[in-house]
């Protein structure tokens, strides 16, 4: 029996999850790049200092830009069991987001496939049930 290794920090969860639940991103006031999920005072893309944090509500619908299927256990939580599909998707209205694609057969994932972000259980760590978004197939 392997002991659970707690690698997640509870301050991180407290700090970030509110925005993750509501899909609140930040839009650079200069170049317009959409940053998710953490808050930035300086745009990582163009370097512009952000006088105020301009919130941007992500549209959960998007299309797969690239993907991989992990056939070996990945790092992180014990819940990340193979095969696990990981995608990068462009959301309608802006934002390029990475995440787990679930409820999908690995052999059916393809670039251009419509997907949607849904609030799902991610893992349990240190007695905390952590929820955030996963992608699911939207159907043609």
């Amino acid at each position, binding site marked *: 029996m392997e002991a659970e290794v707690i690698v997640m920090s509870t301050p991180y969860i407290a700090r970030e999850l509110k925005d993750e639940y509501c899909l609140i991103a930040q839009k650079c006031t200069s170049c317009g790049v959409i940053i998710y999920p953490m808050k930035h005072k300086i745009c990582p893309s163009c370097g512009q200092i952000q006088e105020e944090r301009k919130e941007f509500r992500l549209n959960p619908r998007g299309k797969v830009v690239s993907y991989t299927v*992990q056939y070996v256990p*990945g790092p992180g939580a014990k819940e990340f069991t193979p095969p696990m599909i990981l995608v990068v998707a462009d959301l309608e209205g802006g934002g390029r987001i990475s995440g787990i694609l679930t409820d999908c057969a690995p052999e059916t994932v393809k670039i251009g496939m419509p997907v949607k972000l849904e609030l799902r259980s991610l893992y349990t760590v240190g007695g905390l049930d952590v929820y955030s978004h996963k992608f699911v197939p939207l159907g043609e």
Partner: protein
Amino acid sequence: MQVAVIGCGMTNFGEHYGNSLRGLVEDAYLNAIKSVDKGFDPRDIQAVWYGTLGSSWAGFPISDYTGLSGLPVSRLENACATGSDAFRNACFAVAAGVYDVALVIGAEKMNDEPCQSLWDYQAMEIWNIGRSMPAVFALRATRHMHEFSTTREHLARISVKNHHHGALNPRAHFRFDTTVEKVLKSRMISYPLSLLDCCPMTDGAAAAIVCRSDIAKRYTDSPVHMIGTGLSADTTYGTITDEQLVGFPTTVKASREAYRMAKLEPKDIDVVELHDCFTITELVSYEDLGFCRKGEGGKFVAEGRASLDGEKPVNPSGGLLAKGHPTGATGVAQIVEIFEQLRGQSGKRQVSDASVGLTHNLGVAPEGTVALVSILRRG
């Protein structure tokens, strides 16, 4: 001030369960001293740069391992480009006229205590959720295949080529030939990358001695001069751009800086050691280093242009795929290979009449990338 490399040494790369980090560093350091043609007194060393990603948490163990107690030792960490950055900073100190002779050591013990905790931690955060290192590169491979009709066969050819080179290298971790069919049928790790598309977990150390070019002849009649260096770091955190999904813009920037400093172009490079942590990394690096156009990396390897007898021999050592990838040692070991290639000391894997060599060392994490390119010329 110009900078020359006068001696280089390394350990065999592999799974050194019977050797400690200290033992590996000692072996690489002693081999570097022994390689100096006219002999070398360690008391000539004035400063040390030590590259390790996670095997030590400071620089001072090197004072202990080398017996150079009291000298300045700086420990450097810059992801998988750590070793090259240690080399670069030692060269800068010599070029600035601060020291006449400096030692560079890169070392990593990957198989004793894998430094997994940070990676585990990051894989719990939503922006990087669940990603292994192969997955980070596989996401680029899938996109490159989609945009440029690159195939898994193209990737497999890189594995076949580098394993062939590794079979000729007595210091390589893997010394066997493979075939395209075997690569394609090896266990899938993170689609489209299978086991033989991935580098192994390797222990090893490498060392280089650098000095002012104008005193190099005291130590050897055939020094190798460091004539160009470039480094670039970027972010993929906020959003990953289209360019970052099919290559590494940091490789483009670092190489252009190095070419400009060396007053050379990609066509002038005779031999290359580049960062093939996965086959896709080598394929996009042909493009990003300017050896072919974006999207033509698959064709470049399929035509044999990167083979030992091709127009642009890439990874004659076997690269990370076959020689192995002890992270902090990798960049220094690339310098070792180019040093020996330019001096005609590479045995069965010798590139004929090589006078200019290039090393490319890449660090990739979910939040960004760092690339480092060095150009060396036979003295």
